[in-house]
């Protein structure tokens, strides 16, 4: 029986596996007691590990600075509002005070918000400038690197071509010298043939029929 690898079982154990593979492993697990025992052991280890719990420091909910300022303003005016409410019991005064406090809170919030937003815009602009500068520098560096690489590649290519041309030239010279030798051999052979033919023709021209006795 082909057992799945430990890596596959670990994926299965921590559910980092696709459904198809999971189904295959489940089927194997059903049929294989050896793998079942191994997986059980690992499950037990995991259960044991869960017994060591650590109290981690709680992270306080953090608000942006402008919200914190806004909350402070709100609290301050709320205190003022409720204090004022106790002192001035008349309903119309309360209403007027509440209205004033509300207007004041809104104004303060708007100021705080505007200040925070302006500050933030400044930060963002500065960050944008830095980022653009950095991108530009990176682009320059990368372009220079690409150009250098291209130049290097071009140089290598050229030297390769020169080397091939030199090889071909040498080959051509060798072929020509071979051809010349062959031609010289053919010429010599032809010359010998001509000389031989000439000699035979001379012999033939000088040929005299031997005298016959007439009886």
């Amino acid at each position, binding site marked *: 029986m082909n057992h799945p690898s430990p890596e596959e079982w670990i994926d299965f154990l921590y559910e980092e596996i696709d459904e198809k593979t999971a189904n295959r492993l489940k089927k194997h697990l059903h049929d294989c007691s050896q793998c079942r025992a191994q997986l059980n052991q*690992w499950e037990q280890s995991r259960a044991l590990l869960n017994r*060591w719990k*650590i109290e981690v420091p709680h992270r306080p909910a953090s608000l942006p600075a402008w919200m914190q300022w806004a909350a402070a303003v709100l609290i301050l005016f709320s205190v003022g509002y409720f204090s004022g409410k106790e002192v001035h019991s008349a309903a119309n005064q309360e209403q007027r005070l509440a209205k004033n406090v509300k207007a004041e809170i809104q104004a303060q919030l708007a100021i705080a918000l505007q200040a925070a937003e302006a500050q933030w815009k400044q930060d963002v602009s500065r960050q944008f400038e830095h980022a653009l500068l950095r991108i530009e520098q990176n682009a320059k560096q990368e372009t220079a690197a690409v150009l250098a690489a291209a130049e290097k590649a071009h140089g290598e290519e050229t030297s390769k071509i020169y080397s091939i041309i030199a090889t071909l030239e040498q080959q051509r010279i060798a072929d020509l010298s071979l051809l010349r030798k062959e031609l010289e051999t053919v010429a010599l052979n032809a010359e010998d043939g001509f000389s031989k033919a000439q000699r035979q023709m001379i012999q033939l021209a000088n040929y005299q029929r031997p005298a016959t006795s007439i009886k």
Partner: protein
Amino acid sequence: MNGKQEFYMRGLFLAQISSSDEQVMWRVQMHDDATAFAELSQRWRGRIQALCTRMMGDPHRGEDMAQETFLRLYHKRKDYEPTGKFSTWLWRVAINICHDELRRTKRRNETSIDEQRGEGSSPVEPESLSDNQPDSTMEMAEEANLVRQALMQLPEMYRTVLVLRHYEGLKFREIAEVLGIPEGTVKSRMSEALTQFASCYRQTRSRPPLTVILDQPRSL
């Protein structure tokens, strides 16, 4: 600034409220922004401290290592690559600090018999543990202590993978990135870690407490 730019700026302003770790780290890196650094510390202190505690097997040393991690984070802020994931970088820094400290401890030969047995480190103490608490709380603390001791007996490379995956919940791919090793290696280490842990736990459990050994009368 025209209306469209204003619109985008407002959008970015809203996005600022929930800045990612990478954005906050960028502020630390570019402007030495102390508020941003405090924000990052707040976000990650708990998890880093838990990691260090489990790597060192001691809450006090874990706290020291977590502090050391954030110190190094600030000192090395210029080395941070903004294209990479912040958490991967932070986990790596913390793990390296723990490894360095464990090696230093080993070199100094400070591991006494007590520490080897896991008795020298501060045991796991549930909050406000007292005599009149129910036995189950005591048992839970004792069990946690056994797990801690067994975990500390594992070789560092196995403990690291186990802590990052089991306790910190990192994916195997992320652990591979943090440790700079292939994902397959992480998984095989994990399987070996779980196997060895079971064995270490059995040994730790079967061993009598040191106090029992010391209390035994000497045979002449």
